[in-house]
């Protein structure tokens, strides 16, 4: 069975934020909600590294484990999705997530939290695939159209890869072999274990 994964090659990531605006473009997430972000370590210092981070669609997703209303579900290929009609916006998932992926848009005055929003691997949500309701609540459903997440598809240097784990790993393995040196795939083992 195929397994969908993200991989960010830190040797290629240049912190151009293409993934971030690609996400905003296809999902039309509002100002202030960032399903994907680029994080830079050692900013401005020798050894500076950047990594693009979003929901990694973890194998044993900690968010799902802590959700008090069990609004998460997982496709057979490991895409972690959730139902906003069930979500109560409690924020437990935010604390559980090692990647800081869950977002809580401000929908009312006084900063009351809205329903949780996060990267869907461009696979929408439970409402009918490609429906207007689905787009409004979850953004694009590219997977159902045979397309992969826009962030990876538009990555400036092809640092961010998204797709079948074996194919992703093949590309990355080839790069590491050509470069020599240590793999730079921050977050991969944390999200997917050693397997």
């Amino acid at each position, binding site marked *: 069975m195929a397994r969908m994964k993200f991989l960010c090659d830190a040797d290629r990531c240049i912190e151009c934020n293409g*993934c971030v*605006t690609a996400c905003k*473009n296809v999902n039309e997430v509002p100002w202030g909600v960032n399903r994907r*972000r680029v994080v830079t370590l050692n900013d*401005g210092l020798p050894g500076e590294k950047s*990594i693009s981070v979003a929901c990694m669609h973890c194998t044993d997703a900690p968010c799902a484990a802590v959700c008090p209303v069990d609004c998460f579900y997982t496709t057979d290929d490991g895409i972690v999705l959730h139902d906003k009609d069930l979500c109560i916006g409690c924020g437990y998932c935010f604390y559980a997530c090692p990647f800081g992926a869950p977002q809580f848009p401000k929908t009312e005055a006084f900063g009351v939290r809205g329903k949780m929003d996060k990267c869907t691997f461009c696979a929408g949500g439970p409402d009918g695939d490609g429906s*207007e309701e689905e787009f409004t609540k979850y953004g694009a459903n590219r997977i159902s159209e045979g397309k992969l997440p826009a962030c990876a*598809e*538009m990555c400036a*240097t092809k640092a961010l890869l998204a797709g079948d784990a074996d194919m992703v790993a093949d590309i990355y393995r080839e790069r590491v072999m050509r470069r020599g040196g240590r793999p730079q795939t921050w977050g991969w083992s944390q999200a997917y274990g050693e397997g």
Partner: protein
Amino acid sequence: MKLIRKQTDNSSNKAARGSAFDRRTFLKRSGVTAGAAAVAGSVPLGMMRRVEAQTASGSRNRNVEVKRTVCSHCSVGCGSIAHVENGVWVGQEPDFESPLNMGAHCAKGAALRYHGMSEKRVRYPMKLVDGQWKRLSWQQAVDEIGDQFLKIREESGPDSVWWCGSSKANNEGSYLQRKFAAFWGTNNMDHQARICHSTTVAGVANTWGYGAMTNSYNDMHKCKSMLFVGSNAAEAHPVAMHHILRGKENGAKMIVVDPRLTRTAAHADQYLRLRPGSDVAFIWGLLWHIFENGWEDTQYINQRVYGMDKIREEVANWDPATCTEVTGVPEEEMRQAAQTLAENRPGTIVWCMGGTQHHIGNNNTRAYCVLQLALGNVGKSGGGANIFRGHDNVQGATDVGPNCQTLPGYYGLSDGAWKHWARVWDVDYDWLKNRFDNEGEYDSGDGTLARPMNIPGIAVSRWIDGILEDPENLSQRDNIRAVFFQGHAVNSQTRGPEMKKAVEKLDLVVISDPYPTHLAVMSERKNGVYLLPTCTQFEQSGSVTASNRSIQWREKVIDPMYESKPDAAILHLFAGKFGFADKMFKHISVDDSGLPSPEDTLREINQGTWTIGYTGQSPERLKLHAENRHTFDTTTLVAKGGPCDGETYGLPWPCWGTPEMKHPGTHILYDTSKPVSQGGLTFRARFGTEHEGNNILAEGSYGKNSDLEDGYPEFSYAMLRRLGWHTELTPYELDVIAWVAGQLPEKPAGSASQSYVAQFRDRESEVLDAVNWKTDLSGGIQRVAIAHECSPFGNAKARAIVWTFPDQVPLHREPLYTARYELVSKYPTFEDRKSVWRVPNRYASIQETDYSGDYPLIFTSGRLVEYEGGGEETRSMKWLAELQQEMFVEINPADANDRGIQDNQWVWLEGPEGGHIKIRAMITDRVGRGVVWTPYHFGGWFQGEDLLDRYPEGSAPYIRGEACNTATTYGYDPVTQMQETKSTLCQIKAA
């Protein structure tokens, strides 16, 4: 799968939670208020428009048209696929088939669709009346503006209106901008290439022939070494980094030289921190090691380079200690870098604004070229000078567009050049001449007198001086009294307070732009400002030239938004108002909406631009390339099979001869390993055949299969006759040559009989002999030269010295405002010049004062990935604006502590000419001690004041901030009027 080594949980957790401090968190934190304001109105317009589109079509995803466009935010030329439903741009998809970007985008490219939903646009023509913006019809606007321009023309002559074109116009729009100025009767027309790579174009063209990128982004896959000087590709040309990192993965050694440890430097094998403004010293320091160790390519130099001996003499002065003293780069680092370049050939050099924007910019660019010539790197795949241009069509606009010193195709402004273009335009030369101010003669710059038609106009960097300077000191009749800006951001130019004064002095300001721009709000004007809503490139079709000289065809994505019109349509309206539309658009059809045909316009460009081989790229060929772009190799850019088999993607110029000749385009300039007919070239014989008695043609070096096996001068009819090749010209070609020579009254219609033209065939006539590869409108001379595998422009040596420039050998000269004043006596600037392109240039009179006491910090500027140029457009795009919410200055912790400045605190940055800006401090080691850096994309503030109230309602960009150039200072290159923005001084104090 056990591929990935587990990393420490500690560091990764920290990063994920955003507790690690970086520029993003800094900006997110500081921008809370701006964000909150934007959230208030956050129902996305795109959402509404999407619903509209679907309502109109009944349900989802029928009727989707697929359009192919090219990103308009830098010169890489990234293709992008647009999905359009009922006229609404509903989706953006990656263009995986483009060999230039293979689907990839940076933040700007991945946000392109926002252009189709921007609510901040100028929606209809407006004028400022007593401080209020008043709506006008297009007809009213054209009549009012036109009448005032005509009145100024009557009173002060045609040179009193200054026109600004754009690198963001497509080839057709920018070409028409230049043609329009010619028909109006002035050379006072320029565009942002002036302040981008003008010193490159002049320096490089004067070294080996053409002033353009010699290779391509894609060719960097083949580099063995890469030297970046003053180029931050990761932020300025992000998709280029795809090619660069592939090159690096293939084993190339990457060296980055910059005052800042940039995001590009983060990927380098070696990073050298350079003192701003010491580029020549740095390059000579590298060459010192190269010559010292005999690492230069002696055979290459002997065959293909002239003047290297004089370079050696200067380089001898730059021993390691001296070089380190001036540049600040440690001696051992210099040696190591030189060795890397010597041992890893072919290697390329990349430079950008960090190298060009200096008052000795032309010296810098020539020094870079000389380094590459010494290493024998030019004309080789994996080598070359990969000069990354800025805007999407800055290469094309430089080639065929609005430049104050030349007609399209670098023909210059001589009578011969004007006559050439008069023939192409099919207008009477005398009529054209009479459009100009012929009343007086003025200082042309070298002390001789000339008429304004033959004197370069006032450059984009100097228009404010055209307004403020005493007319006695100008090489034209009167001051500039009105300006017309079509697609340019004035906040990208230096000396803000003086600009404000200049704008306030004008009779009239006209801004033709999708957005209001900083110019509309920066002054205290209450009247006499017009805004004309103008289309982006997504609302029109046309061709665009990427940095590598590849030309791509853009399809129109959506109809013009609101009441906006494309550049060409606006120019057509004004040409009508001024009474020369019939002449100007004689061979260009204009459709019912008033839009001149981009196809016809490109064909006219094809018919005139022989100098640079912009002649073979017909609209039909370009469209064929677009359709078959998947057939092109992503490294060589050559099509494998299919209808474009063997051609190079986008027919990079020179694409010699007529389109029918099917030249494949030239991927790598000056590559003698290929025949000219297959994209090979020699160095151009542009500077005669000898200098001080020395032969300057190539020796023993020539293109593959060339019938001339040595150097040769440029091709003319005389040369063909001498070689006996003139008999190969067709009757039609000979007929056209005779017409160009003035031997026939009418332009030949298209065919001629052998017997009719026989009279010219062997005639020894000076006028006939003088027709050459640049002026022969039939393309016959080029065709015959290439049939013999010769370069039409000759085969010469590149020249390491340029005897027509102020510094024959590139010299280091200290910046006008230098922090190292003790070096001025040894490396002084130029003497003041009375007239450079119509205005005086000051040098020594500024440098004679030492400002380094009160203004001890070196002030330099650069790019952020989210924004482009002056930023009016990109700061108005929500998806981008959210990511960079405030103007800031990077300051070293030591300098901040010396001034008691905290991170994120408001500070005043003041330049030595008094301009001051209120911005946030960002404390970082990215800049070295004594150097501060700001981005240059901000505008809409002026010296502490947010100018929000001055924008037409609802049109202010989401993000506004101080323009860094409010605080930058005087300083201009003597060859090109390039402005000095990369090395001045400032002081910073807490606000």
